[in-house]
């Protein structure tokens, strides 16, 4: 059981992410990678279609992450949050890179 004082892991809420890439740019260890593309959304009655960023891929490399929380602080849409869970171990270096599904939000801290 994770003690309440442990830092937990970092979770992503993909629906809240707008691919602004602030977390990617601010991360001191460059452990976050993000890929997105633009889509045009036409709405009935609107004069012209609007562009939306669609998140394709998001990953945090927990082998580089130092759990400083700068990404959580800086996200303007609160798409990144602390999650009370033990750090997932791995038998391979690549297993420490957690992609979108693995980062999906679970029980939150506090």
């Amino acid at each position: 059981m994770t003690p309440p004082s442990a830092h937990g892991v970092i979770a992503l809420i993909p629906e809240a992410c707008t691919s602004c890439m602030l977390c990617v740019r601010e991360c001191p260890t460059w452990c976050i990678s993000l890929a997105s593309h633009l889509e045009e959304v036409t709405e009935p009655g609107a004069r012209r279609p609007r562009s939306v960023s669609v998140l394709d891929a998001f990953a945090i490399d927990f082998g580089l992450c130092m759990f400083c929380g700068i990404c959580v602080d800086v996200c303007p849409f609160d798409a990144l949050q602390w999650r009370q869970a033990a750090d997932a171990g791995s038998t391979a270096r690549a297993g420490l890179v957690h992609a979108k599904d693995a980062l999906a939000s679970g029980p939150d801290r506090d």
Partner: protein
Amino acid sequence: MSPPAPVPAERWRAVAAARHDEGFTYLDVLTAVDRLGDLDVVAVLVNPDTHEECTLTTRSSQGRIESLVPVFRGADWYEREAAELLGIEFDGHPDPRPLVAPASDRPELLKTTPLPARQTTPWPGAEDEAGARRRRAAVAPGILTTWTQEPQ
């Protein structure tokens, strides 16, 4: 850490000694900060009876500052580390030998010292397709254009 109180460089040891006499007899940490052109020194003093903290900071004069070792014996290794990694000279330090790292051409933690791995690793924060319309600078923060591989 309490907000740092600025101290003029010429009063560094005197102010630290005054705090010591007021009861802040334990030096928690002494370190230095590279302000890109200026080197600041920060000392956190603790009163072991009241557990109060007091943080002092000063700006070194061209990388030189008085050593606090005559007041706080614990400053010895902290100052050796700051001297080695940030190039600060502590006047009056009894034993200014390198402490931490193998010898190198230049202080490792100065912002002007290049990090070859950072220069060659692609930054994930550079443009992506959606970002092409954002026109953000595609240079990672902290990488200076003055970095070169050769020592100066």
